[in-house]
């Protein structure tokens, strides 16, 4: 925010974009100037449409992310703590992780139809494995020297768990949420294709179907805004609860 170089470059980028569209006479089916996009965003805001769509998307995102986290975090912690479990299930989880998530989409549609539950499950599906695996790796990566120090002070396994492993995992858990959040956003876009009537992704898709480039660009900028906000919020949470970690 304090960098003049950035604001100057932004003005230059937007300015040349505007100038290019206006001067080259490019078809509005191909590209529209930023002023038109901003006007559309303004109209969405004024009519209250923006609030409805933003609310619907945020709700879906939080529901899906929350569901994924509620299962993935305890599962990841268990895998990190119990070696035997990790050895037994680990390879299959890695195999599942290597599979592109959208491959399960038809199954979800077959089982649950085009309902709101399906949409929540789609978002959760995208975020689940990244969160689980990153929590697992985070717990496993808890500094071994901490564990040894605790053992030198005669800590029981239970004390080790409560006083070293779990607090040491807070950072990785929050970091995994950040990673999962990015994928959940992709899941949000996919989910809002199926039976949604509101949402930022939905508006973008509708725009694309109607060849309405202005709508698509407006929707994209809102999705970007949503993504940046989510990332900043999660990074701030990470700083609040695990200030000893250096967040990128």
């Amino acid at each position, binding site marked *: 925010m304090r960098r003049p170089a950035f604001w100057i470059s932004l003005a230059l980028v937007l300015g040349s974009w505007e100038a290019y569209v206006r001067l080259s006479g490019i078809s509005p089916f191909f590209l529209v100037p930023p002023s038109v996009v901003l006007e559309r965003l303004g109209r969405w805001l004024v009519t209250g449409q923006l609030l409805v769509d933003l609310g619907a998307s945020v709700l879906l995102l939080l529901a899906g992310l929350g569901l994924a986290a509620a299962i993935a975090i305890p599962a990841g912690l268990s895998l990190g703590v119990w070696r035997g479990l990790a050895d037994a299930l680990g390879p299959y989880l890695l195999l599942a992780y290597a599979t592109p998530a959208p491959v399960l989409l038809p199954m979800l549609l077959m089982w649950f139809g085009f309902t709101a539950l399906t949409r929540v499950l789609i978002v959760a599906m995208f975020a689940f494995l990244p969160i689980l695996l990153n929590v697992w790796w985070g717990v496993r990566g808890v500094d071994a020297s901490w564990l040894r120090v605790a053992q030198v002070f005669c800590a029981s396994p239970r004390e080790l768990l409560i006083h070293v492993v779990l607090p040491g995992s807070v950072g990785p858990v929050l970091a995994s949420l950040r990673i999962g959040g990015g994928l959940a956003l992709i899941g949000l876009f996919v989910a809002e294709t199926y039976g949604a009537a509101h949402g930022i992704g939905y508006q973008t898709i509708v725009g694309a179907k109607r060849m309405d480039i202005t709508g698509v660009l407006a929707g*994209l900028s809102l999705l970007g805004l949503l993504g*940046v906000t989510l990332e900043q919020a999660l990074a701030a949470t990470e700083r609040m609860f695990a200030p000893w970690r250096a967040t990128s």
Partner: protein
Amino acid sequence: MVAGLLMLAVWEGAWRAGWIDPLFFSGPTAVAGALWRLVVSGAIIPNYLTTLSAAALGLVLAVATGGVAGIVYGLSPAVRQVAGPYLAALNATPRVATIGLLVVWLGLGIGVRVALVTISAFFPVFFNTAEGVRGRDASLDRVARVYGCNRREWFTSILLPHTLPYLLTGTRLALGRALVVVVIAEIFVGSLGGIGYFIINAGQQFQSANVLAAACLMAATGWALSTGLERLGIWLTPWHDGR
């Protein structure tokens, strides 16, 4: 290994016992049979190849551009100052959402999918490479200067070997993204063909065995490519320990 075979046996048992409705799910032998039939009849391999080729092409482009851009970004504070916020904002945006735009600009050939894969896979490669370059030990440069390295020698003997492991880690992350994104693109735009189209089509006709067969194919592919990249990384950079 044992746990996996046990799970497969239980699954097959449930399938044989008729506990699983073939409309919604399937059993291991049925899936294997379906996969065999699909391959032999030529129904799945052309789709599979078009998906893979789009993903591979896009990934190569992403690694080339991401690597170069990452090195530039890591080396130049000025570039980081100006471009940083744009890149962070672009990274936070789900690039799959641009599919509508890309179809308008690029039509419905292989170019659309390659473009989408490139813009999606670019960022993991870029950020990992940049992080590797930026976080390098300052003593590396100092040692180079002490030994009288010129610019070119410093670049090829110090910077590139140091950066390569980070580039490869980024590529492994980008691979996952590439596959996800190309399947999504095919699901969205049916006329592109590919595995995404195949799987949605089979799903709509409730051909559960086919859906699962395609899913297994993609799982095996993803796993094989990921492991292959890992081995390649170890072979290319024996000086780098840990990941």
